[in-house]
């Protein structure tokens, strides 16, 4: 398929790998954080890690919206479905994440709650049109890639006077997460970032310029295809060698410096900054998420329904928080591959197909884990 096959060519991958081996200086160790779950997935699915020299390491970032959403928010969505008797529309990724008492929305659906998996916000609007006697809530999650689709839906609902539709908004912002990683009390060592891919089609590469300069880290906006990831790694290594703190754009076929202004206009019209929002693993971050503007508050499920908030602790021993901060690799979690597998996930990083744990598991990295867990022979 056009724009896919040519970015997955094996021969070219070998050649870029050779260029990376040549660019990586033997006396240095390069720690590249790939921000997005989509990158992590590509790295393992296509075996990119194994094409890298030993001194080039990928550190997996927090760019998986399902992974960073705290369990309490899922519980709140569950409350809407179970106590307020709404039709809860959700993206499929959220279905299996364990929330309070390790119960997922899938379990709630099995117990009788009206929870429907949708592909697009347009589907949620259609469900609202078809069920005018019911309240329909869209459980909105995602970074800037997904936010405009929610904004369009709210705008269309307002225009059509679709009063039984509302949105439980959990949209979060990538530059804030990047800042939180760099600002952490015990920051992990990162030499360069592979910057968000499809988020950047919307926000452009400009928002990273301040971060790159302020924290002195080069950022290469990277596509999700394997050759994109490899070429971006090569560019990042060269920037590190040069001591440069620039933002470069490898994914120029879809990303411009200013992004998609039409989508940005939709977002600013419907959403405003939330004072603070809790992220799994990164804690409470100021100005890191969006809420629905007061002009559209009739479409805000948090205003329409009384939702109780309870703190929920993650499963004991689950290293999702450290993994999301880049401090641990999935194989360093005690639960990984033992009690926590995609069939029976304990933490969000194993549920989402973009989560680092799911990527390690799906592409055979659990074998590395078994080797690590083996007692050392004397």
């Amino acid at each position, binding site marked *: *398929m056009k724009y896919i096959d040519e970015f997955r060519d094996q021969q070219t991958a070998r050649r870029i790998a050779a260029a990376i081996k040549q660019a990586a200086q033997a006396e240095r160790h390069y720690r590249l954080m790939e921000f997005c*779950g989509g990158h992590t997935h590509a790295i393992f699915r296509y075996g990119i890690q194994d094409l890298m020299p030993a001194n080039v390491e990928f550190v997996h970032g927090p760019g998986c919206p399902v992974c960073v959403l705290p369990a309490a928010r899922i519980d709140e969505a569950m409350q809407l479905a179970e106590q307020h008797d709404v039709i809860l529309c959700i993206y499929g990724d959220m279905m299996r994440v364990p929330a309070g008492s390790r119960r997922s929305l899938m379990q709630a659906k099995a117990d009788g709650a009206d929870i429907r998996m949708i592909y697009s916000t347009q589907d949620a609007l259609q469900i609202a049109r078809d069920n005018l006697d019911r309240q329909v809530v869209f459980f909105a999650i995602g970074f800037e890639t997904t936010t405009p689709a929610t904004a369009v839906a709210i705008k269309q609902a307002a225009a059509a006077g679709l009063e039984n539709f509302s949105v439980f908004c959990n949209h979060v912002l990538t530059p804030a997460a990047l800042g939180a990683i760099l600002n952490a009390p015990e920051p992990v060592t990162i030499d360069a970032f592979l910057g968000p891919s499809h988020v950047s089609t919307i926000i452009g590469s400009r928002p990273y310029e301040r971060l790159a300069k302020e924290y002195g880290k080069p950022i290469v906006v990277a596509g999700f295809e394997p050759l994109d990831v490899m070429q971006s790694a090569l560019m990042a290594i060269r920037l590190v060698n040069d001591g440069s703190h620039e933002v470069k754009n490898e994914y*120029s076929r*879809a990303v411009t410096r200013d992004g998609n202004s039409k989508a940005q206009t*939709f977002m600013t019209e419907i959403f405003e900054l939330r004072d603070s929002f809790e992220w799994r693993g990164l804690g409470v971050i100021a100005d890191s998420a969006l809420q629905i503007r007061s002009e559209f508050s009739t479409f805000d499920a948090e205003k329409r329904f009384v939702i109780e908030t309870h703190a929920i602790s993650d499963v004991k021993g689950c290293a999702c928080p450290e993994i999301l901060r880049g401090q641990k690799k999935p194989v360093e979690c005690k639960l990984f591959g033992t009690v926590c597998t995609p069939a029976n996930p304990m933490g969000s990083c194993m549920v989402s197909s*973009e989560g680092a744990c799911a990527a390690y598991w799906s592409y055979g990295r659990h074998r590395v884990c078994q080797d690590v867990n083996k007692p050392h022979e004397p």
Partner: protein
Amino acid sequence: MCLAIPAEVVSIDEANDNAVVSLGGIKKQISLALVDGAVVGDYLLIHVGYALNRISPDEAQKTLELFAEAGMLELPPK
């Protein structure tokens, strides 16, 4: 979550701001609310039923050339 796939526009419904796109022969209706001026034959990046952006053929070509440049190196002997 942020996955998006390039698909070719096969027809446009201007009244509803929709298009039908084809991905390796599979057809799907998507919303054009976020992009202006899409025409039949364009490749759009599709995410959750919306086109996020048009793919620039020129920039795609430049990136492929960039790959080729890295590939100027000889493959190491096996």
